[in-house]
């Protein structure tokens, strides 16, 4: 029982990342009709927003300490972050410690700008091209973006820790009256799950309760009619692309402490997120979220030793296996609508 509870918890944070990326993918597909294979790269750029802010905050004044030597035997260079000089050592250290949560705010304008440039600069030229062309060009863009990041930051992962206040794990075992250490879960992963729940709710609320959202939803349902009403739907869809980029970016920022960011982390998530979108139903926002959590939890269960001993290698294929079964039973996915990507 405790093992099942543990794997559900594990699946929630994996599912959170899948759901956030899949949500952005679906938003772009639903509004612009573009299959965006560069969406994983946006997640990666988000994580590197966290790395960049950490680097900015740790920019240091260099002084020479003649009492110490470096690895070549020369007088050692001592680095003191400017923020520690400006705000005092304690306050400065705290600002650096909280760089990841601060990077969420930093990432929003950066990601909206990246999304805007991407959409206006490249993707809009492919609106009326076949989906295969869109996939090729956005996949190419993803490769270019990750190589650019590699050029600046190198190929090795860069540690981007969570604030010290969130280190360690919560013992659900003690809380639930089970033995201690039976069900533990890191604080930061709980934060990640709650964060993604807030972001997903905010996106749904934005689409449902604002005029802008209503117009966008109307445009998703019938673009031509909305256009005939004199509404510049293209402009709103471009803004939605920026919002989808910001959602992916924020998901990347908050994921940075879970696994040290590296330039190819976007690709690791991209394929799975596409499976999530397809399983959820192309163009269905609730479907993307539901499928994200469902597949995240299933993936966690499949890596249990008990399951692996029954079906070796199941952890590597479970998502695709479930996708096949769901698509056989429901060809449009869990919550797919008639007419989406159907001729």
């Amino acid at each position, binding site marked *: 029982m405790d093992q099942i509870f543990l*794997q559900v918890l594990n699946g929630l944070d994996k599912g959170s990342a899948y759901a956030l990326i899949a949500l952005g993918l679906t938003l772009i597909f639903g509004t612009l009709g573009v299959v965006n294979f560069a969406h994983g790269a946006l997640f990666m750029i988000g994580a590197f927003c966290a790395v960049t802010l950490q680097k900015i905050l740790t920019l240091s004044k260099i002084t020479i300490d003649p009492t110490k030597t470096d690895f070549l035997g020369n007088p050692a260079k001592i680095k003191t972050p400017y923020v520690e000089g400006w705000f005092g050592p304690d306050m400065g250290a705290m600002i650096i410690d909280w760089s990841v949560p601060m990077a969420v705010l930093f990432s929003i304008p950066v990601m909206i700008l990246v999304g805007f440039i991407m959409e206006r600069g490249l993707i809009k030229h492919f609106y009326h091209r076949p989906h295969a062309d869109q996939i090729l060009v956005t996949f190419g863009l993803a490769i270019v973006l990750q190589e650019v990041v590699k050029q600046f930051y190198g190929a090795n992962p860069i540690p981007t820790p969570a604030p010290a206040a969130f280190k360690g794990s919560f013992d659900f075992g003690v809380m639930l009256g089970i033995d201690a250490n*039976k069900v533990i879960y890191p604080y930061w992963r709980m934060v990640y799950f709650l964060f993604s729940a807030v972001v997903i709710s905010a996106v749904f609320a934005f689409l449902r309760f604002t005029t802008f959202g209503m117009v966008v939803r109307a445009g998703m349902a019938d673009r031509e009619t909305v256009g005939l009403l004199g509404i510049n739907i293209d402009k709103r869809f471009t803004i939605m692309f920026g919002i989808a980029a910001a959602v992916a970016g924020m998901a990347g920022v908050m994921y940075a402490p879970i696994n040290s960011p590296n330039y190819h982390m976007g690709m690791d998530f991209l394929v799975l997120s596409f499976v999530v979108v397809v399983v959820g139903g192309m163009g269905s926002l609730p479907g993307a979220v539901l499928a994200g959590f469902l597949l995240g939890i299933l993936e966690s269960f499949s890596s249990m030793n008990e399951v692996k001993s029954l079906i070796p290698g199941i952890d590597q294929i479970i998502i695709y296996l479930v996708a096949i079964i769901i698509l056989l039973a429901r060809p449009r996915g869990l919550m797919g609508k008639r007419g989406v990507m159907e001729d």
Partner: protein
Amino acid sequence: MTKSNLTRRGLIKTGAAASAGLAMPTLFTGNVWAAAHSGYRNAPTNGTVTLGFNVPQSGPYADEGADELRAYELAVEHLNGGGDGGMMNTFSSSALTGAGILGNKVQFVTGDTQTKSDAARASAKSMIEKDGAVMITGGSSSGVAIAVQGMCQEAGVIFMAGLTHSNDTTGKDKKANGFRHFFNAYMSAAALAPVLKKLYGTDRTAYHLTADYSWGWTQEESIAAATEAMGWKTAEKVRTPLATTDFSSYIAPVLNSGADVLVLNHYGGNMVNSLTNAVQFGLRDKQVNGKNFEIVVPLYSRLMAKGAGANVKGIFGSTNWHWSLTDAGSKAFVKSFGTKYGFPPSQAAHTVYCQTLLYADACQRAGTHNPCAVAEALEGFKFDGLGNGPTEYRAEDHQCFKDVLVVKGKENPENEFDLLEIVEVTPRAQVEYAPDHPMFAGGELGKCNPGA
């Protein structure tokens, strides 16, 4: 109007004659001619000898590959008489003079392995066939090293392995044309086990998470055998797919298994992520069976430790070499590399630099680049001054035997490179094994192949 007498048959004859004429210069001066007249493939021509450096220049190990390339370039510079000579000044063999190899200026070509066996084989093949490389060296993965070693054996050139730690490289997949300076999984386990016994006692239960490929399997087998021999029990051995990025679902059940030690048989990005996840789960703050929970990383790399950040603090592992060593060879290499590039070399850089010097030295002593003569010069060769103390290239399996470093993540690093500290230098005798040891059995060196 003119009438042409050119027929189809005539055109073919003329074309063939012209092609033969064009091919003539390279036929008699190029590699084919040289091979035919010297009895081995890619003999040096025009006073230059070409070495092929096959490293990951793209993909997840690109930083490690970049560090290897820096060391190779430094080695070539030193062999050609440039720079301060680095470890050539401390090397116990005095065959190298700084005038290239056998009077031929050393030049090099590079290939990108992408850390994929097929890409690595293709780039090695291209360097041998198109660029005339007489020796191939490099690699940052055992799968790649084993694949390229096999290819070099078939092609008839020497392969000087770079960073490859699987027992199989000089075990069941060993080849007569292949040589490894780097240590292996068995040696890591043999060096670590006594230190773990001293630190954590004999009443421990280990849980293994293992990368599911050649290196991971041999690392798991080696460390499990070594720890079980000193009384530890093994709770579980779990194989993790190489592509795994989030290890939480593998780490979550560890505490429930009754284990009080987690052994991470992971390298590279796998190691960074699994260690980070394990620390996130607070495993190191837990008490199990009345003891502190511990984590062990059998193979450490400074470049990877950097990726895991503060999570490596206090965690034990092993390494082939570390820049903080104070012997004359290590100091000379660190000075030479650090002055040129501004930071200390990694263990990957060290092993490939050594391999280049060892190959050049063997050619000098053999008086030829012929792979069979070079192999003979390397077999049983005993040397010192290259940063690992007295070392021997064992003739039976082409594995270097030397001391092994047990290290731990430094608690209070003084700078960004100061991530690991040496805990113990395990003597060679403690990590040595018989050539027919079961973990290395199943393969034959075979005969050396000169390629012509």
